[in-house]
């Protein structure tokens, strides 16, 4: 530590000895850091949106089911508590939103086609907060009350069934006694979802209508809770677990929807890989700069060693020089990234390529999201890798024999 001031002073002065080279390298690091953070913000925004949309489709942040339901999702494995009991338990718990719903496999039949679907009996008011269906964008109308007699299906499913708003379809499932439970519905609305699979798979009917059709009284099969942050669902999970006291199986969203959970993990991995790939490109410039910086002052390094500076101090000096270079570049890159992402956080219209994006669940508006954790990750990874990259030239510099270094023709 005693040597830090003198090493820092030497490193700083040597850094600016060839200021043109330093400025070019700082610029390269700044652009690299900006690219890392900006691209991460774009991807984060897109994946966040996809996950948020995905979570709001059905999983919410936390779900509760009959312990058997996830293995056998039939009404036989419904939640033993009725709507009133659930409301008494959860209304006072101040979740951002919660809702109980009927969710069972079913078959939908038009006069032309039949399809296997997931039947959702929902309370439209309770689910509006987190439903993936924008009620206003529904062609026709969405359900209005839990005992609405209409059905809302996806546009793609309507195409497959060759049906439309106003026509009748039949939905068929099983009641708790494994008897056929069916009912005719009039299509009152066609919803549009980000993912084509949602439009083909989900069918919405009123909760009470579904309960009546399935002959399950006022019980449901699924309770969904939404907390404040989908990345931190443990507080909600704890509260729900305590409230149901082992009677129900409580699951986090990424346990229920492993695709979305995997997507989040892949995104975290992608950010790291992206940062490392950019850094690898930068590292060639960094190492080259340091090798040149060492090469052009071999005599001076020899002189310092001859005067009594230890090889470890020479090593430290080169590493500090590298850290200065990286810190300035990263600082500028961070400022650039912040200045370029913040104005775009209100959304970028990518409707030109929206068709393709919607295929895999992204919306036509992209909301770049700058997370401090991503900025810190990019900075820390670059500093650590930069440290490692600078070890080789620094080590070489510290290994010079003073007498040989001093006599080098510079």
């Amino acid at each position: 530590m005693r040597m830090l001031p003198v090493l820092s002073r030497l490193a700083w002065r040597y850094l600016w000895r060839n200021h043109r080279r330093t400025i070019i390298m700082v610029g390269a690091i700044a652009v690299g850091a900006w690219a890392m953070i900006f691209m991460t913000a774009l991807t984060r925004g897109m994946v966040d949106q996809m996950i948020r949309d995905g979570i709001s489709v059905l999983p919410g942040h936390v779900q509760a089911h009959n312990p058997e339901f996830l293995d056998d999702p039939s009404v036989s494995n419904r939640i033993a508590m009725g709507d009133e009991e659930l409301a008494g338990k959860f209304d006072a718990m101040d979740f951002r939103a919660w809702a109980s719903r009927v969710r069972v496999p079913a078959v939908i039949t038009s006069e032309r086609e039949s399809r296997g679907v997931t039947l959702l009996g929902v309370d439209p008011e309770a689910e509006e907060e987190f439903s993936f269906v924008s009620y206003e964008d529904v062609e026709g109308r969405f359900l209005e009350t839990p005992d609405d007699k209409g059905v809302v299906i996806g546009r793609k499913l309507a195409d497959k069934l060759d049906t439309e708003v106003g026509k009748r379809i039949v939905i068929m499932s099983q009641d708790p006694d494994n008897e056929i439970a069916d009912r005719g519905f009039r299509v009152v609305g066609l919803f549009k979802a980000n993912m084509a699979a949602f439009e083909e798979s989900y069918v919405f009917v009123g909760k009470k209508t579904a309960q009546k059709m399935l002959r399950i009284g006022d019980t449901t099969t699924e309770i969904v809770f939404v907390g404040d942050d989908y990345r931190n669902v443990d507080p909600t999970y704890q509260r729900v677990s305590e409230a149901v006291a082992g009677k129900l199986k409580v699951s986090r969203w990424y346990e229920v929807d492993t695709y979305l959970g995997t997507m989040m993990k892949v995104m975290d991995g992608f950010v790291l890989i992206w940062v490392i790939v950019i850094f690898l490109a930068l590292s060639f410039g960094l190492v080259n700069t340091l090798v040149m910086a060492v090469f052009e002052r071999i005599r001076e390094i020899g002189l310092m060693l001859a005067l009594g500076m230890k090889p470890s101090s020479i090593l430290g000096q080169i590493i500090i020089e590298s850290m200065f270079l990286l810190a300035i570049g990263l600082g500028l890159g961070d400022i650039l990234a912040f200045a370029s992402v913040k104005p775009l956080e209100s959304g970028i219209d990518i409707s030109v390529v929206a068709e393709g994006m919607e295929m895999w669940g992204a919306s036509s508006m992209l909301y770049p999201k700058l997370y401090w954790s991503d900025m810190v990750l990019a900075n820390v990874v670059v500093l650590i890798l930069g440290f490692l990259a600078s070890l080789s030239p620094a080590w070489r510099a510290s290994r010079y024999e003073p007498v040989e270094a001093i006599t080098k023709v510079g």
Partner: protein
Amino acid sequence: MSSVRCVDLCKTYRQGDQDIKALDHVSIEIEEGGFVCLSAPSGGGKTTLLNAIGGLDIPDSGEVWIAGQRIDEMSKGELADLRLSSIGFVFQAYNLIPVLTAQENIEFVMQVQGVSAVERRKKSLAILDEVGLKGLENRRPAEMSGGQQQRVAVARAIVSRPALVLADEPTANLDSKTSDELMTLFTELNRHHNTTFVIATHDQRVMGYAKRLIRMLDGRIVGDIEQDAA
């Protein structure tokens, strides 16, 4: 007590297909407070001997003792400590650190030694005055003449009052007037502080200042005489 003792030093360099004997069984002893000139034609071995004494170069065989410590068996770290605490170097080419000012160059060794900033400043300004460079403390080497740079190098070598100063052709790039001033400074330091000087040179005028003149040829000592210094 001897300040420097070399026993049977040998050092061979390979140059192309030829082995060059830079030191060929060299033994010398220099007392504390000595003022010695090593004189030899180019390639005679004086710089190699100086480097061996300073722990910058390790001989192939033989022993080097500085102030009672055998240094040819020391580690790099121990040698660095020894050079830092006990030896001042003045090299032929000015060998200042170009990114530091005159004062910072002088303070460099003290800073590595861990001397406080106040004391460093006091000593560096005093020595700058002593070598006649008062007012030039903020100049970088590129902004000074050759003579001024060499005086800064001398100031750096002596500022922490080392017991031994090793100088390799210190006047090679200086005019005669500056050379005389530098040698007068060395002589005064030798007299007043009992600093031991070992100077490698082939400048006859410099040799005139020495109390003892050791002549070398082809890596061997061919003459060793005491003389009246100028």
